[in-house]
């Protein structure tokens, strides 16, 4: 289909560390439509950042390997592109905002020097055109005194301003897809509100798609059209945002929502999911969430659940299997009858 900007099909990534190998991404499927905001939620170590890096082609070449699967950007597989070809794409059609605005800017170059790099790479422009372009973009992201900031160094700016510079850097070449990896995690709430507002605005203005990676469910509720929930290297649930918050199907998503302090009565014991995320080396047969799942039954430990569709709501859980549902209902009935 043509309205999908990005499509990731059955992506598997393997890392090598000496003789050991681990596979943090095991069969990830999702797509981003034109003009939409897709949220990817999950806890640390669930593979959301690795997924986004693989889309950008930024995985370390020596130690990582895409075992199978494809990444389609505008219907073109980019997962096996050469570095040289990738360079034409990166920063031009796909761009990325990183988590730490403090460390992702180079401290020894001025803002102007850093921002001119993508334009020099991808566009044929004269120096004065580049400068004017940069100033226009800096103004667009709401930075005051853009004409001066362009000649300043990153340490002269505050965290919120640096994140705005990062956003303008990602915007310069009018990308079709912007990947934001935890863009507000390092910022304070009041600044976070400013940046989220800005992201919404520029997304509409530049007609691009946004892939928002976060661990914060409330940011998702605020920003996204559709959500993908990841757990231990797999997509466990995918749904439209209202649908997900109204009717989370996967027990992991349900647990996450219930454990938010705002969904619990004050001072009461918070709902919590027992146990911990399994290490990539510990994952074997069966559902990845089975060892923490309150509803787990034998089948969960034996077989990996496929993705069950319920309209556009996809979840990987045996409880959604129509056959299992029937069995459960029969059991319930027999309990009631006896």
């Amino acid at each position, binding site marked *: 289909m043509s309205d999908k900007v990005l499509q990731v099909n059955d992506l598997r990534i393997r890392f090598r560390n000496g003789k050991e190998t681990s596979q943090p991404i095991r069969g990830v499927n999702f797509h981003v439509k034109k003009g939409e905001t897709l949220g990817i939620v999950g*806890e*640390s170590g669930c593979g959301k950042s690795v997924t986004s890096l693989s889309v950008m082609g930024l995985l370390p070449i020596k130690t990582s390997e895409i075992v199978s699967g494809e990444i389609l950007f505008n219907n073109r597989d980019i997962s096996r592109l050469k570095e040289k070809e990738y360079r034409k794409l990166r920063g031009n059609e796909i761009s990325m905002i990183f988590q730490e605005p403090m460390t992702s800017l180079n401290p020894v170059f001025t803002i102007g020097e850093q921002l001119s790099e993508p334009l020099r790479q991808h566009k044929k422009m004269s120096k004065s055109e580049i400068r004017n372009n940069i100033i226009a973009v800096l103004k667009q992201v709401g930075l005051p005194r853009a004409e001066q900031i362009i000649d300043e160094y990153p340490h002269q700016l*505050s*965290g*919120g*301003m640096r994140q705005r510079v990062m956003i303008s850097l990602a915007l310069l070449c009018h990308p079709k897809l912007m990947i934001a990896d935890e863009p507000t995690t390092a910022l*304070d*709430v*009041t*600044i*976070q*509100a*400013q940046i*989220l*507002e800005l992201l919404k605005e520029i997304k509409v203005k530049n007609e691009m798609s946004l892939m928002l990676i976060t*661990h*914060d*469910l*409330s*940011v998702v*509720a*605020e920003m*996204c059209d559709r959500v993908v929930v990841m757990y231990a290297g797999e997509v466990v649930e995918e749904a439209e*945002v*209202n649908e997900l*918050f109204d009717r989370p199907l996967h027990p992991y998503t349900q*647990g*996450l929502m219930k*454990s*938010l*302090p*705002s*969904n*619990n009565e*004050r*001072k009461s*014991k*918070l*709902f*919590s*999911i027992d146990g*911990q995320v399994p290490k990539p080396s510990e994952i074997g047969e069966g559902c990845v969430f089975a060892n923490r799942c309150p509803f787990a039954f034998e089948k969960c430990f034996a077989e990996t659940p496929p993705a069950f569709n319920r309209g556009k709501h996809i979840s990987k859980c045996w409880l959604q299997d129509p056959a299992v549902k029937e069995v459960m209902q029969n059991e319930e009935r027999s309990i009631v009858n006896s």
Partner: protein
Amino acid sequence: MKNEVLLTVKNLKKYYEISQGMFKEKIVVRAVDDVNFTVMRGETFALVGESGCGKSTTGRTILRLVEPTAGEVVFKGTNLASLPYEQMRSLRKQMQMVFQDPYASLNPKKTILQILMEPLKVHNKFDKKERLRKIIAMLKIVGLSEYHLDRYPHEFSGGQRQRIGIARAVILQPDFIIADEPVSALDVSVQSQVINLMLELQKEFGLTYLFISHDLSVIQHMTDRVAVMYLGKIVEVADTEDLFRNPKHPYTQALLSAVPVAHPKEEKKRIILKGDVPSPANPPSGCAFHPRCPFALEICKTKMPEPTTFEKGHTANCHLYIKNEEEIEYVTSYS
């Protein structure tokens, strides 16, 4: 809850001087500037604010991990700020701290046994055989077990490390614990486990917490009273429920409105503050919040506001409430 004051902080100040060179005047950073509050026994008192507002420095100055520049910290009737070092050290068995980063606050070269034994040795509590039993009991309380004793911190996950950090603080059976952002480095599902643990421990040992955090939803859930800090000063103090229902100070109002929604259908009227937090080295004159305040008056630029008291011990430092009521109506409806 008994109405017994456990800790009083009076006019606490912590200034840092930055040298600009031999003959130039030093820049003074007012990290904590004239902070006053009291903590009752058995309650959870929260300090909220954005990064750089001085909430962590306040916590550290109370324990004298950082020496205060001026002011008093009265704990159970003794002024901590003027105690000699040795006495302060022995008093720390009654007041302990849980740190923010569970990855940095445990010594990587020590086993869990050594980490938990350290405070008992320093304060010479229990005899030697008793100590090991206490440690094992403590580990069980925080949800770890005996076979973790000989492991090193790197073998644990973030949530488990924070449990160890909490165990280390609670093992001396203190009355008062300062928890400096104990859950902000943790994931949501682990965060709820640690919050539950802290609430349980509070019930079991009758602890008093000074809870430092920037996460408003956690504060709303587990604290009794809240102090909101901005640029080294407390701008509002109130009961938690009261504060969330009826914030008085414009900064608190903006802070609460900036919290993202819990459900996509929830509509929220948002006050988006312009600009960033000013540098504490060069704070604005008058009320420190006036350059970002949507309701700023002329007087805010020149005069520092005094605290105004509302019902139930709710106080706010803002000129809007000192003026007579008509004017406030005008200001809030037309600006």
